């Protein structure tokens, strides 16, 4: 496996700047997730790493070597896409072996067999090797697609929303498997998604992208607890963070220059406290309940574990975990001298 490094990489398509001055190092063995909405520049970043796009400026390094001018095939990276394309006329074994039979590889059949079986074991599809690709479920197909990348033993994996075409339960299973495989192999993975759950559950570090710009790069907990700016704070968390104008809650404003106060829904405690609100809506999610409060003519979401006695329309007291509040300035940047301290 190898390190991947972008140095001030930019890429435009006509008037549209897809990636702007991106500097980023993906450490050897790291699982890095780029999170952002459609059009953030996630896929372009992957394609730049793969050599499917050439940067307008800046350099790309893999394993310490400048590969900016290298063609895709020479980079020895594996690209896994959202839609998995298997060869329908081949069984699972031959699908997995296919990349190894390329003439340039010159691998013996015994070695191919060894690698295919090891990967099938790792992915839990050892009993499916003789099945036709068309006989597999969606989850098995995506496992084979991942397996086909693994057998090559590339230096780097690039994954473009590989789980997004699967149903929720399957995504849950494959998230855990993918993380386990990455850990077992020490694989270096650059993974892009718009799904915050995939990012927070798998990533060693998350890079939050928007409009071609890297807004923050940090471990999931840090991105969640100390978002560098409002755009990042909104990107993670469900329900989303409450952002109140400072003028609405002067008693919570720690210093001048604060424009907005961010409150995570789980940091609101219902039932006691100095604040009063009206319950506008109650949404049970199973383990948790989202309560939409009407507070000083603004909506405020609280996340609680029970809904004991809560009624729509009732007035109630609530409190805030004051050490968890976030202060943002006029430009939306986190004020670090205040807030959680």
């Amino acid at each position: 496996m190898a390190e991947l490094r972008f140095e001030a990489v930019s890429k435009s398509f006509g008037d549209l700047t897809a990636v702007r001055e991106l500097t980023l190092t993906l450490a050897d063995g790291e699982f890095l997730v780029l999170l952002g909405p459609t059009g953030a520049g996630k896929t372009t970043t992957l394609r730049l790493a793969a050599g499917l796009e050439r940067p307008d400026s800046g350099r790309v390094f893999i394993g310490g070597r400048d590969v900016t001018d290298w063609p895709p095939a020479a980079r020895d990276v594996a690209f896994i896409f959202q839609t998995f394309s298997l060869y329908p006329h081949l069984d699972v074994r031959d699908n997995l072996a296919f990349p190894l039979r390329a003439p340039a590889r010159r691998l013996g059949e015994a070695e191919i067999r060894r690698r295919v079986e090891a990967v099938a074991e790792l992915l839990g599809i050892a009993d499916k090797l003789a099945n036709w690709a068309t006989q597999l479920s969606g989850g098995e197909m995506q496992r084979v697609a991942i397996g086909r990348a693994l057998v090559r033993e590339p230096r780097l994996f690039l994954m473009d929303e590989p789980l997004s075409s699967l149903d929720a339960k399957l995504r849950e299973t494959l998230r855990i498997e993918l993380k386990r495989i990455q850990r077992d192999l020490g694989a270096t993975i650059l993974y892009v998604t718009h799904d915050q759950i995939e990012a927070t559950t798998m990533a060693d570090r998350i890079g939050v992208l928007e409009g071609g710009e890297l807004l923050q790069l940090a471990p999931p907990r840090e991105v969640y607890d100390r978002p560098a700016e409002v755009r990042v704070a909104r990107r993670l968390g469900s329900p989303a963070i409450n952002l109140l104008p400072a003028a609405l809650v002067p008693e919570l404003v720690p210093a001048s220059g604060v424009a907005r106060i961010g409150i995570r829904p789980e940091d609101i405690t219902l039932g006691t406290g100095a604040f009063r609100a009206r319950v506008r809506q109650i949404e049970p999610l199973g383990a948790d309940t989202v309560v939409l409060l009407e507070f000083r003519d603004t909506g405020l979401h609280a996340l609680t574990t029970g809904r004991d006695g809560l009624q729509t329309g009732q007035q109630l007291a609530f409190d805030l975990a004051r050490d968890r509040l976030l202060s943002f300035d006029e430009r939306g940047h986190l004020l670090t001298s205040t807030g959680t301290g």
Partner: protein
Amino acid sequence: MTAIRLEGVSKRFAGFTAVDALDLTVPDGSFFVLLGPSGCGKTTTLRMIAGLEMPSEGRILLDGEDVTELRAGRRDIAFVFQLFALYPHMNVRRNIAYPLRSRGVARAETARRVEEVARMLRIEHLLDARIGRLSGGDRQRVALARAVVRRPRAFLMDEPLGTLDAAFRELMCEELRGLHDCIGATTVYVTHDQIEAMRMADLIAVMNRGRVEQLGTPEELYHRPRSTFVARFIGSPAMNLLACRIEQDAGDPVAVLAGVRLPGIPAPAGTAEATLGIRPEHVRIDETSALRGEVLAVEYLGARQVVTVEGPFGLLKLRAPNRLALAFGDRPGLAFDPGRVVWFDADGRSLATARRREAAGG
């Protein structure tokens, strides 16, 4: 407003039974969700209520009136497919007014109703804006306004939020439920997304192979699933289902999970084997417990975390506040909240426990 009743309704397509002898009552003014995986019959059921499909058998009643033979257009029900299709060349006011104008409603009445519904959805300041200028959320609100402005007897919605991303879906669930609280029109809503169902529904009918597997409030389905199908379908991550042996201890049944006795847990009588169901948030770390496994994954979800533990019992998930420090490779002891355990038989049907039966009897 309108109550909807289905009596013995079946629908067969060339030998395939999509809906199988369904009896269902949608109470007047309720938000009623048909929930299930693809192919469970939920959309076919909705289309029969709308009059877009004819039942092979059975009757459909709106407010007691048999409408089984009535064409879709005469049932006065609004069918909402997807919420985002607006007319881009019209402003917000004209978009919302469109269903009324096309029905020939008088101009003054149209204006009044458009403003009323815009106020309800907090978009009255946008009435003269062009659609192209609106944010995504405002567009959805306009689409909603257009769906409700003609005040049909009931709303039928088929995965209207299916194409939206997660954050948006969350927002629109809240808007839809808020709107329902305002106008109180009977709504039948089809989805395969259990979170959407939980967030919005008064009642959920979980469907499986053309039948209703369980009908209840979100809380009932979540805490007292009557089958393993419902236990798995509702909740994310799903309920843990663990195969146990049931032994006798001085005449009382005791559950044994992977060789570990669980004396504090009420167990079902009259069976040697049963499946224990426990939600991830009702699994606790207990270092005195003999039930142990190895942490396979710690999934950080912001407010909460989900920990996957692998042991002789298989895989088990627990959900905990994000402050709990567990790492890959740890071997925690595990315990279950006794009041939260549910039991299922070999067919996946729920079982009463000896203690619960006594409580019910006494």
